[in-house]
C-alpha cells in the first residue's frame, strides 16, 4: 500500500521546473595523500616514526611494544594485557593516583592496552605540551612500579569482568566462538585477557618478569603524529629514551597460537534461559594479516558481510527483519584470526537465520559476484580512505599496523589503486581461499527451550549445551 500522493504534493510544487530530481553527477575527486612520515632507529634499537600533520595544535604519541598476548607464558595467560594495564597504575616516582593526575593536569589521559600482537601506550593532547608527554611516557615505559596493591586491584577487576560477562551475551558469544574455533590449548582459543584460573594465579613477580622480558628499546616503536617538527620530535625522544637499555627475552613457548579445532562440527549452545534473542557466531579460522591474499579476502568480505549493503545484512535485516544488524569480519592478526559472522536474532528465527547465513557463505564461494557488488565495495573502500585518517590517533594507528604486520612503507600510497584493480575473479578466489563451508563453527547464546529443537533440525551436527562458564550444561539448566 502506498500513501496518497496528494498528501505530499505541497512539498514538491516545483516538480520538473528548476529542480533537479535525478541523481547528481559527481565532480572530479580532489587529491589526497596519506601523511608523509620518516623512520629512524636509535642506537639502542628503539624505532621512531614521525608523521607531521599540521592541521590542528594536536599531537599523538603512540608507543607500541612487541608484548601482546601471544607472548603470554603458558599458564600465565592474561599477563600481557594486565601488564599493559598496570603500566598506567604507577611508576617508581609516582603512585597510580599521582600519575593519573600528572597526565590529566596536562589535559590528557594515558591510554594503555594490549591485544594479541602488541601492547600500546598512547597519549593525545595539545602539541605545545609535547615534551612533557614524552617525559611522562618515558617514565611509564621504563619504570613501572607494579605495586602489590595495584596488582591485586587490577587482577580483581579482570576477574569481575569475567564474572559479569557470564550475563552479557555478546562478549560471551565472542569468547565461546574463539574457544570452539581453535584447537584445545591454542592460545587464540582462550581470551587474550586470560581466564579465571590463569588470571587468579598471576602474582607481582609475573608482571615484573614480563615487563623486563618484553618492554625493551628494540621491541618498541614510538610513533608521533601531529603538529610537530620531525627534528624537534626526534630530539625530545632521544633526550628521554636514548639511554634506555634492556634486552628482550622470549616468554612464550613457541607453539602455534592459531591451530584450528579438529572437533567434529556441531552447534555449541550456551544456555541463557529466557533470552529474547539468540546471539549467533558462525565462522572458522581464517588467514594471517600478512597473507598475500589478504586484500582479495577483505574485498570479498565487504561484499559478503562487511558493508551495510552486504549480502548478509540485506538478507537478514532488510529482507527478513530477523535482526537489527548482521555483519561478517576477518580479524587482522599476525597469525590466523577468525572469519566470523556476528548477529543477534529474535529467538524464534534462530534456525532460519543460520540457514540464511550458511547459504550466503556457500553462495559466495560458488560463483562470481556481480560487477555492481564489486564496484560498490571497491568504490567504498577507495573513497572512504581519507575519512579513515581524520585524526592524529588514526594516523598513528595506521602507521603502527605497517610495523606490526610488516607492510611496505608505501602500503597506504598504493592501497587505493590495489583496491581499484580488484576483479570479480579476484573476489571469487578470495572466497575460495578463505571460506570452507563444511568447517564452519556455530555458537549460539540463547534459550534452549526456544531454540534447541530447531537447531537439531538443521542437521549441522550435534547440539552441545554449555553453561556460561564453559562447563557442560547441567540437567537442571537444560530443563529450564
Amino acid at each position, binding site marked *: *500500500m*502506498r*500513501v496518497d500522493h496528494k*498528501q*505530499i504534493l*505541497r*512539498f*514538491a*510544487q516545483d516538480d520538473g521546473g528548476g*529542480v*533537479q530530481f535525478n*541523481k*547528481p553527477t*559527481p*565532480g*572530479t*575527486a*580532489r587529491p589526497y595523500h596519506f601523511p608523509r612520515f620518516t623512520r629512524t632507529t636509535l642506537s639502542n634499537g628503539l624505532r621512531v616514526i614521525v608523521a607531521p600533520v599540521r592541521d*590542528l595544535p594536536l599531537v599523538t604519541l603512540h608507543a607500541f611494544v612487541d608484548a601482546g598476548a601471544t607472548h603470554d607464558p603458558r599458564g600465565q595467560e592474561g599477563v600481557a594485557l594486565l601488564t599493559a594495564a598496570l603500566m*598506567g597504575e604507577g611508576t617508581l616516582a609516582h603512585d*597510580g593516583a599521582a600519575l593519573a593526575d600528572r*597526565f*590529566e593536569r*596536562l*589535559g590528557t589521559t594515558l591510554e594503555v592496552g594490549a591485544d594479541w600482537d602488541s601492547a600500546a601506550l598512547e597519549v*593525545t593532547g*595539545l602539541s605545545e605540551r609535547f615534551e612533557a608527554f614524552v617525559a611522562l611516557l618515558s617514565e611509564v615505559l621504563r619504570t613501572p612500579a607494579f605495586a602489590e596493591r595495584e596488582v591485586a*586491584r587490577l587482577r*580483581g*577487576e579482570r576477574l*569481575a*569482568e569475567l*564474572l*559479569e560477562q557470564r*550475563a*552479557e551475551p555478546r562478549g560471551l558469544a565472542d569468547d565461546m566462538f574463539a574457544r570452539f574455533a581453535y584447537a584445545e590449548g591454542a592460545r587464540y582459543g582462550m581470551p587474550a585477557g586470560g581466564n579465571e584460573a590463569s588470571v587468579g594465579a598471576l602474582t607481582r613477580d609475573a608482571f615484573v618478569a614480563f615487563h623486563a622480558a618484553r618492554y625493551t628499546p628494540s621491541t618498541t616503536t614510538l610513533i608521533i603524529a601531529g603538529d610537530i617538527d620531525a627534528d624537534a620530535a626526534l630530539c625530545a625522544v632521544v633526550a628521554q629514551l636514548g639511554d634506555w637499555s634492556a634486552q628482550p627475552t622470549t616468554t612464550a613457548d613457541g607453539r602455534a597460537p592459531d591451530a584450528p579445532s579438529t572437533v567434529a562440527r556441531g552447534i555449541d549452545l550456551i544456555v541463557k534461559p529466557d533470552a*529474547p*534473542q539468540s*546471539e549467533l557466531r558462525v565462522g572458522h579460522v581464517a588467514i594471517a594479516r600478512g597473507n598475500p591474499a589478504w586484500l582479495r579476502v577483505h574485498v570479498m568480505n565487504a561484499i559478503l558481510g562487511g558493508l*551495510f*549493503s552486504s549480502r548478509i545484512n540485506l538478507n537478514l535485516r*532488510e*529482507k527478513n*527483519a*530477523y*535482526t*537489527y544488524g548482521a555483519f561478517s569480519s576477518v580479524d587482522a592478526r599476525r597469525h590466523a584470526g577468525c572469519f566470523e559472522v556476528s548477529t*543477534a536474532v*529474535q529467538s524464534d528465527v534462530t534456525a532460519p537465520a543460520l540457514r540464511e547465513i550458511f547459504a550466503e557463505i556457500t553462495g559466495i564461494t560458488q560463483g562470481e559476484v556481480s560487477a555492481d557488488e564489486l*564496484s*560498490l565495495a571497491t*568504490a*567504498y573502500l577507495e*573513497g*572512504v580512505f*581519507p*575519512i579513515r585518517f*581524520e*585524526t*592524529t590517533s588514526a594516523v598513528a594507528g595506521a602507521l603502527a599496523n605497517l610495523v606490526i604486520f610488516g607492510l611496505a612503507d608505501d602500503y597506504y600510497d598504493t592501497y587505493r589503486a590495489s583496491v581499484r584493480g580488484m576483479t570479480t575473479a579476484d573476489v571469487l578466489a578470495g572466497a575460495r581461499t578463505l571460506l570452507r563451508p563444511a568447517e564452519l563453527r556455530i555458537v549460539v547464546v540463547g534459550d534452549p527451550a526456544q531454540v534447541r529443537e530447531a537447531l537439531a533440525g538443521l542437521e549441522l551436527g550435534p547440539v552441545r549445551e554449555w553453561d556460561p562458564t564453559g562447563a557442560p550444561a547441567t540437567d537442571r539448566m537444560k530443563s529450564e
Partner: protein
Amino acid sequence: MRIPIDSYVLSNGLRVTLSEDHRAPIVAVNLWYHVGSANEREGRTGFAHLFEHMLFQGSEHVGANEHFELVQRAGGTLNGSTWLERTNYYETVPSHHLETALWLEADRMGRLLPAMTQEKLDTQRSVVQNERRWSVDNQPYGTWWEKLPALCFPASHPFHHSLIGSFADLDAASLEDIAGFFSTYYTPDNAVLTIAGDFEAAEARALVEKHFGSIARGGGRPALPDMSLPATFGTWLRETVEDDVMVPRLFLASRSPAFGTEAYYAASLCAAVLGLRRGSRLRRALVREQEVASAVSVSTWDLAKGADLFVVDATARPGVTAEQLEAAVAVELDRVVADGVREDEVSRAVALLETDMVLALQSAGDRADKLSMHATLFGEPERVNGELERYRGVTAAQVTAFARERLGPDNRASLMYVPKRGEG
C-alpha cells in the same frame, strides 16, 4: 580554536550553516530535525526512532536501501540517531560527492511519502523491535535507558516515556502516523542543515538552494507542554530492578539545570570533577581506594528543555552489596555538598575538556554535528566557538554552589540493578 561559521536562512525557513576548511578532501552534511521522542503522542512511544529508520527506506527518486548504497558507493559514511529532543541524519563523503549527499537529504525531506509502503513499515518495525531486544532486553542493565527517565520525570512530562518504545506501541504504528509525523515535523522550517569541510561557499549555497529551496515550509510544529520542573525532586526517589546480571549497578540521578543555561556549565564541570577519567573523585575513592566499584562515571544527558539529568553510574565489585555501593556513592555526594570542590579539581577538569574540544574539531562530521546542535537548540551555531570560554569562566565557588543546590538527599533518584535471586 575557532571554526569558521557562515549561517543563513532559506525562504522556506531552513537554517543553513556552512563551515569551510580544506584540510582533507572530505565534506560532512548534517541535518538536525527538531523532533524527538518528547514529541510523540500517547500510545506511540518509540515512533520518532521508528520514523528515523523509515527515512533510510527511500524517497520519491531514491529506491529502498539506495540511500545507504549511494553514500557508500561514493566512499562515504552515514547514519542517523534519535534522542529525546532531536533526530539527526548525517554523512561524510569525499568532497566531490557533496551534491549527491544534498540531493539524498533533500529528496527525503521533500518527497518521502511516495516511497512509504506497508511492507517497508512492517520490516522496519521488526528491525526496531530486534534493536530493542539487542540493546535493551537482552543486555545486562539494558533497561536503564528507559527506567531512569521514567523514575526522574513525572508521568505527564515529555521526557518520561521510553525512547525505543514498547512492543505494543511499535505494533500500533501505521502509515497514517508516518504521513502525519512527516508533514508536522519533517519540514524545512523545523530543520537545520550544516555543511562542514572541503567545499566552496558560493557553490555550496547554490546547491543548497537548488535542492532544498523549493521544499515548502511546514504548518508549524505543535507546542510541547510546559516542561519546567521544580529544581529538585523534593525527596530521594528509589527503584530496585532484579535483572539477569552478576553484580549490582547503580544509576543515581539528580535533576540539574537545562543544557546550555549558564548554570549548566557548573553542573557539567561538577560531573567532570566527580567522574571524568581516572583522576576524578569517584574513580579515586570508589575504584582505586575503597575497591567497592569496578567502574564509575558521571555525565549529564544534555537536555535543553525544563531540566537536565546529572547521572552517576557505578558498577559494584563482586561481593559488594547494593546497599554498600549506594552508601559509598552517597558519602562522596555528601562530601561535595558539605565541603565543595577545590580550584585544582576544576582546573584538571577544564584541561581535559579543552583537549576534548580540540580533538572533536578533527572530524568534519563532529564539527558539523556540533554546529547543528547549537543551531537547533539555541538558534546560534556560533555558540560552538564560545564553549571553552564558558567552561573557563566557571569558578570553583559556582561548582560548589551547584553541588549544594542540586546534589543533596532531596534531589537523588537511585535506580539500582541487582542480580535475580539465585545469581551473583
